[in-house]
């Protein structure tokens, strides 16, 4: 059957509001009698709180002041476990840790007051590096500073080394990266024992905030309401931290009995909220003379910061993606997430995979170089094929064809010709050119049994006019949820997208469809949208009011009759885990993901040898993500993700000083501008995925995985510098180039 709506570039549903300035973000909302809230934070990385002093010429009696003792329920931000306090009372474990909350009507006076609170701290020795954490120079979390560790074993790695012609080792590192959504974090709360707690804010996961507030206030679920306002970008940064801000705003509202708004300025947002986990990886690879992988041993460590937050899950995804889309008989991956006294690191698009994929793809270029094989040839001899097994022993059932994707990417980028051309031209030139690539996969949805535990739900209802409302907790944050869901529902029912309404995520009105993360919204929740609206159609069929082959007006009149005679016309769909997918959490083996996106990215760079500045001159992104629901939105995901990947590779350098981000400003933390982005050409190979809505798989995180290693490999090609760490700032590259000269 031919699609009517799927595959069309339907304009963004809320586009008109956004281009006219009418879209309402949290900071655009003001409630009568509203106070502003501020957070007083720890000035030390680790220590014991000796006193809180309210100083200065401040009318303190006008302020609402909240500390840990004002918390009605449990003092923690509930996530995987309950180790992170909402307001710390006795010990501080990282800089910027929240200690006191203030509220006042005048936001200028509030800022003066915030600066006038002095936190007296007896400092304790702190841990700032993964190495010190592993060495346990101090024990700062649990018994061993380890939030989580994994061991993946396939085949017999130990016996394999003896059979190899070459063994290649290497260390690789990635730095922290700030999500840098242009809308900083913010929340508004109303709260009282009689009315319960309601928060409105910028967030990705309404039910994460809901869960955190229930425990914090000790209230039943129907006394907590979380409403998402228009969200100005998330990228993972609004996955877990919104629970913290919502908790703070709600505590101030609870005590003051007035609405309270907290919005962070950029400096506070950058210094205090989560970032991408810094990582270190070590690879040891055994390979035959003709380029067949014999064994891969991978050691992968991420810096989790001071509390567990989502680090175990980030580590899990990083671990599973660490061995890439290759068929290797013997694989061992050991990984761990370590505690340090940095603000907790958290979710950021790609979620551990960009870190481990950088290490692998950079390493494989070095392996190819060692054995005297072209880097693409090494990949081609080891690409995973249908029926073979990935590192976690998942048998690939998809019709994957990495060779074909690579051919396509190389034709689009002119890879072979450019590689030769640049090598010939570089000898003479101060501007050197290089071209490199990365080949990779990205699993969509929660890992292993994750989706089964989430048990997501979506509801739909039809009005008497034949309009269909979709109720889901999946948030729109720019990636296109509203539009994609409308297309899926419209296609399923034979309606126009205008007849579909996506209800604003509000825990009082939408079921729990799980968090808006993990490239799961289109593939997993979208499928539930499709099932839920099919349920409506089925009711109309069964009631005899509608027959297959109906027109839109038949549908409208059937809805009218149904609602008039039988009452509400609604339907819900709940996630059912495919029976053929099995996961063993204890051994970390099995079907890690229901589907993978597969990709080959090619980057072309120029390097000014006098300044060591790198420019990305051209970029080609070829991927297979199942059926593309909306080509313009899908392209937007790829182009935006590649741009963030360029930042990760070249510009975005979080400078740490004893656990503090010292460049917490857009002035000195540089993200790509319109001058830094090359032409980005993308191509989608579309193989419909049987379990996805209309054949779609996940797409959102994919582009972050392959962009940085493709660029790093291109820089190595241009200059001969053996890139081991990103970001490749001019300072870092210059040092490497000087070493080559010496």
């Amino acid at each position: 059957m031919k699609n009517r709506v799927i595959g069309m570039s339907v304009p963004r549903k809320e586009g008109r509001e956004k281009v006219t300035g009418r879209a309402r973000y949290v900071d655009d909302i003001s409630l009568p009698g509203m106070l502003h809230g501020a957070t007083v934070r720890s000035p030390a990385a680790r220590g014991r709180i000796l006193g809180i002093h309210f100083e200065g010429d401040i009318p303190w009696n006008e302020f609402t002041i909240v500390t840990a003792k004002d918390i009605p329920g449990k003092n923690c931000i509930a996530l995987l476990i309950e180790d992170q306090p909402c307001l710390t009372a006795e010990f501080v474990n990282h800089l910027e840790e929240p200690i006191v909350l203030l509220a006042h009507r005048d936001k200028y006076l509030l800022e003066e007051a915030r600066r006038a609170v002095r936190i007296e701290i007896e400092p304790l020795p702190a841990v700032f590096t993964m190495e010190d954490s592993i060495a346990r120079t101090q024990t700062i979390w649990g018994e061993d500073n380890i939030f989580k560790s994994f061991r993946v074993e396939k085949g017999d790695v130990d016996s394999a080394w003896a059979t190899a012609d070459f063994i290649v080792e290497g260390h690789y590192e990635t730095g922290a990266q700030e999500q840098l959504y242009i809308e900083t974090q913010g929340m508004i709360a109303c709260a009282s024992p009689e009315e319960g707690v309601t928060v409105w804010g910028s967030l990705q996961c309404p039910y994460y905030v809901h869960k955190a507030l229930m425990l914090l206030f000790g209230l039943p679920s129907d006394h907590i309401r979380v409403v998402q306002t228009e969200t100005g970008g998330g990228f993972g940064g609004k996955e877990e931290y919104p629970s913290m801000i919502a908790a703070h705003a709600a505590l101030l509202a609870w005590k003051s009995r007035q609405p309270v708004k907290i919005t962070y300025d950029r400096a506070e947002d950058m210094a205090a909220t989560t970032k991408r986990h810094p990582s270190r990886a070590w690879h040891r690879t055994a390979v035959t003379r003709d380029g067949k992988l014999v064994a891969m041993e991978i050691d992968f460590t991420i810096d989790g910061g001071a509390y567990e937050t989502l680090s175990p899950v980030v580590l899990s995804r990083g671990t599973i993606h660490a061995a890439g889309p290759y068929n290797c008989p013997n694989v061992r991956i050991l990984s761990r997430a370590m505690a340090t006294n940095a603000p907790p690191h958290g979710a950021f698009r790609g979620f551990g995979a960009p870190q481990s994929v950088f290490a692998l793809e950079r390493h494989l270029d070095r392996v190819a170089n060692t054995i005297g094989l072209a880097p693409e040839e090494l990949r081609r001899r080891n690409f995973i094929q249908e029926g073979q097994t990935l590192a976690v022993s998942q048998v690939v059932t998809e019709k994957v064809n990495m060779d074909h994707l690579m051919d396509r990417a190389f034709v689009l980028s002119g890879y072979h010709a450019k590689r030769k051309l640049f090598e010939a031209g570089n000898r003479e030139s101060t501007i050197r050119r290089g071209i490199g690539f990365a080949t990779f996969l990205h699993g969509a949805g929660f890992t292993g049994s994750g989706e089964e535990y989430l048990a997501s739900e979506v509801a739909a209802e039809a009005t008497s006019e034949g309009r269909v409302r979709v109720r889901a907790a999946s948030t729109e944050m720019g990636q296109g949820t509203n539009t994609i869901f409308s297309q899926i529902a419209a296609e399923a029912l034979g309606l126009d997208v205008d007849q579909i309404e996506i209800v604003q995520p509000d825990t009082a009105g939408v079921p729990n469809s799980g968090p808006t993360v993990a490239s799961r919204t289109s593939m997993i929740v979208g499928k539930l949208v499709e099932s839920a609206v099919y349920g409506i159609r089925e009711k109309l069929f069964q009631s005899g009011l509608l027959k297959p082959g109906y027109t839109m007006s038949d549908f409208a009149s059937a809805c009218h009759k149904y609602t008039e005679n039988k009452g509400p016309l609604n339907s819900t769909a709940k996630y059912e885990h495919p029976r053929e997918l099995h996961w063993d959490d204890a051994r970390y083996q099995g079907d890690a993901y229901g589907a993978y996106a597969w990709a080959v990215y090619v980057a072309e760079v120029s390097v000014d040898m006098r300044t060591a500045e790198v420019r990305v001159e051209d970029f080609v992104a070829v991927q297979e993500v199942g059926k593309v629901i909306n080509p313009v939105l899908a392209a937007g995901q790829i182009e935006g993700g590649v741009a963030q990947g360029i930042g990760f590779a070249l510009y975005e350098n979080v400078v740490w000083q004893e656990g503090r981000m010292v460049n917490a400003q857009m002035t000195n933390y540089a993200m790509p501008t319109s001058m830094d982005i090359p032409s980005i050409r993308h191509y989608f190979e579309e193989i419909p995925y049987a379990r996805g809505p209309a054949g779609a798989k996940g797409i959102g995180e994919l582009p972050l995985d392959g962009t940085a290693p493709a660029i790093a490999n291109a820089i190595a090609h241009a200059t001969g510098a053996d890139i081991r760490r990103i970001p490749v700032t001019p300072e870092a590259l210059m040092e490497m180039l000087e070493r080559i000269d010496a």
Partner: protein
Amino acid sequence: MPDAALKIRVRCQVNGRATEFEAYPMERLLDALREQVGLTGTKEGCGEGECGACCVEMDGVLVNSCLVPALQVEGTAIRTIEGVADGDRLHAVQQAFITCGGAQCGICTPGMILAAANLLARHPRPTVAQIREGLAGNLCRCTGYIKIFESVVEACRKSEQNP
């Protein structure tokens, strides 16, 4: 110089309408627009003139409203995102942003649209290099800028068809 601690009365034009508001002399135009005039379409992204989310036109010149003190606004004509469309009729740039996917999360969009409209007023047929340069003061974290460039080109094309 007026006393920094005392509010002043500022008279100006906002989107073609005579407007008066009270503000501290060094209060940011951004805050005055959002809080005194009630126009929240202008957004704050960084508060230090780096991101361009707060761009408005002041006497036809593109400025970061987070860097303009209220004092300096007296007697000027300001155009914000709310003044770009002609009633319900969208500006060519606004329509193109919808058609081409130039807006994702939408938070940089008001500033970006003003920057694009300002560019087209100066260069009705900009080259790709001029588009890149014209938008270099406006950061977008979602799109990677490609769809924004395409939106500007599309707006030129449409404007030439229906001048």
